[in-house]
């Protein structure tokens, strides 16, 4: 097509030089306003504010605790633990859902309402529209994360209190130290949150379907969570965006290790970059001028997508064995033993017994996996033989303690012992208060890399 065209209105009309131009920030302001007026965004914000308080309120009126989640047994004792439990849940499920609802429709809605032509005939270029919408989605994603952080901390501190947090090494953290670590943990979730927001944007642009954009990130997260449960290798697990939400655990170990944390940040950045580059290429090449082609609903495309996805997931499941085994008996033993030691000393102090600083138990630990392969995530059993000095002909009294360990691919575990070994979940301290028995459930993490 060739076209030569000239339109010359009379010169008397004021020239265009005085006009303002829209740019990235103009689009950003408009998108921010649109998002703020949407019912879904308002409901999410309300949920982020009210949710942690409701959770804390429910915990207040019952004795049970979400023990399966890291820090879960401590929620009745420390407000910080409550915030971390909320963070753990959000990292697994909440953030991908929030990202999908926020960003999954931000581009697709323009297709649904047919407004692309209108917005592109204003002063905004494709580039500024893309950047402005993206910035708005990022702003709201981070905003909701901050709301959740503040709300969960406020709910924990107001309804449960600022009791000391017991970390993943069995140490008791001061209030200031605990607060700093909790805030850092929330902060470390910003990048993976943006990775899922970028994924939602990509799905929104690629499919032009708000439903896929909204649900897609949650589905992808579900698949990733399942992949984290299978395989023994560390490489694929480390590359999954869902695992990046778990990088913060390393902050709470007795000897913090930053390898997984750095990898989590790099992986998040890679996901963000990949999704955004793909999104931009699609937007740049899209023909917005043509009349939308009405697609006949059929089974061909959904079936192809389903088959393709199944093949991809099967491939990834096989690839989950890629690389060295992260979860080994030696690593688990090396983590569980000192944590058990610290928690035993904590228990003894709470019971009013004098414990020398730096006291160390004589413990011999053996761990084995309840599966055919000796390494990998899943169910393990660890037996800790504690040798307690005693007078007489036999210098040590051997006390075995058995823990059922549920180990994740990221090296974090929950170890639970039957009451016959370590007593009930709660116990009376030296002042007669009902407190958490530190040995009932042990949480810990080690570096799987």
């Amino acid at each position, binding site marked *: 097509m060739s076209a030569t*065209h*000239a339109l010359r209105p009379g010169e008397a*009309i004021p020239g265009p030089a005085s006009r303002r131009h829209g740019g990235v920030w103009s*689009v950003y302001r408009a998108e921010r306003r649109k998002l703020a*007026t949407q019912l879904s965004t308002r409901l999410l914000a309300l949920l982020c504010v009210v949710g942690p308080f409701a959770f804390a309120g429910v915990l207040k009126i019952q004795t049970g605790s979400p023990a399966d989640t890291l820090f879960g047994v401590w929620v009745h004792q420390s407000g910080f633990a409550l915030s971390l439990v909320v963070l753990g849940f959000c990292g697994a499920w909440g953030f991908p859902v929030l990202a999908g609802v926020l960003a999954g429709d931000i581009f697709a809605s323009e297709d649904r309402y047919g407004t692309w032509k209108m917005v592109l005939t*204003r002063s*905004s270029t494709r580039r500024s529209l893309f950047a402005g919408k993206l910035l708005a989605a990022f702003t709201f994603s981070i905003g909701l994360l901050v709301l959740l952080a503040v709300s969960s901390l406020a709910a924990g501190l107001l309804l449960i209190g600022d009791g000391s947090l017991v970390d993943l090494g069995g140490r008791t953290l001061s209030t200031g130290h605990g607060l700093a670590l909790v805030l850092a943990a929330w902060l470390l979730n910003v990048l993976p949150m943006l990775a899922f927001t970028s994924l939602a944007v990509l799905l929104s642009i690629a499919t032009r379907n708000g439903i896929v954009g909204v649900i897609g990130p949650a589905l992808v997260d579900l698949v990733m969570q399942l992949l984290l449960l299978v395989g023994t290798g560390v490489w694929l697990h480390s590359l999954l965006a869902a695992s990046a939400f778990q990088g913060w655990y390393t902050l709470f170990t007795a000897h913090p290790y930053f390898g997984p944390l750095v990898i989590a940040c790099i992986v998040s950045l890679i996901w963000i970059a990949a999704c955004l580059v793909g999104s931009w290429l699609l937007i740049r090449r899209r023909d917005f001028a043509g009349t939308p082609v009405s697609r006949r609903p059929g089974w061909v495309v959904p079936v192809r997508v389903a088959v393709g996805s199944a093949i991809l997931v099967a491939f990834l499941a096989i690839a989950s064995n890629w690389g060295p085994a992260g979860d080994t008996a030696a690593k688990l033993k090396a983590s569980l033993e000192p944590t058990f030691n610290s928690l035993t000393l904590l228990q003894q102090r709470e019971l009013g017994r004098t414990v020398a600083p730096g006291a160390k138990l004589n413990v011999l630990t053996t761990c084995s996996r309840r599966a055919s392969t000796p390494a990998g995530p899943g169910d393990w059993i660890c037996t800790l033989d504690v040798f307690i000095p005693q007078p007489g002909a036999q210098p040590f009294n051997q006390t075995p303690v058995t823990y059922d360990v549920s180990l994740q691919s990221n090296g974090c575990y929950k170890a639970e012992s039957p009451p016959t070994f370590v007593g009930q979940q709660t116990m009376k301290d030296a002042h007669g208060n009902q407190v958490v028995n530190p040995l009932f459930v042990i949480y810990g993490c080690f570096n799987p890399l």
Partner: protein
Amino acid sequence: MAVDRVDLVVEEGEVRGLLGPNGAGKTTLLRLLFGLVAPDDGAIELFDRPLGSSDSINLDGVAGFVEEPTFYPYLSGRVNLELYAELDGGADAGRVGEVLEQVGLAGRGGDRVSGYSTGMRQRLGIAAALLRSPRLLLLDEPTSGLDPAGARDMGRLVRELAGDGTAVLLSSHLIGDLETVCDSFTVLRLGKVVWNGSAAQLRDQAPGSAYRLATSGDARALEIAEHHPHIHATRSQTGEIRLAVQGRIDAYVLDLGRADIAVRRLELVVSPLESMFFALTTDVELDSAGLAELAEAALAGT
């Protein structure tokens, strides 16, 4: 090739109709002007400046819509306008209210767009365009989907805007809607300009017009028509008189009066613009027989 070597001049305060049958290239031309598509070859100039693809700065002074104006239905008309204004860098305080007033939607600005009629959406589309204070307003089928009253209102609004000095290019394939609104016309056929001129020139050059006539003495009226060589009169199957007129009908009507024949009904069936449009966009020769056929087709609604 959708459009080729199209050269248009729209003066200040002028309303130019862009006519053409479906597929003539009207909408493609507007898409090119808005930068929604880039030409495969050649260049586009607006206000004597080359228009680059996706270069919105070149859209300064141009506003309008292609195909139909679209909005976010869950928001009010006012908020929609504020959002569109924001994309242009933000509107001055009160400007949104002004344009709503201008298009007659001031009282409904707070309502959600999902509750707007087609006509209200078209008017809101013009309001959105006016926010840009355009020197040139490009409107694609602005009367599409409107009832006759709505189309009349739209025409009145366009004339008012032109009265304020805005140049308006109005694309439509509904010739009747443009006839009373436009000062000049450009006719496209297969992507090329086949006619360009003022409304007066068009009327002068039009091959003719067609009417249906009812009088107090139809037989005598037919006889009188035979004395006017540029008028071809026939009786339809329903008994109505059909007139194919090449030129003006005034002298014939005066003769009817002189012969004491009362004209009870004289209805324009094919206007000069329509006949011109038909002649320019088809290969059919529009002599008196052709005009009569065109009139039959118009009355049959085909």
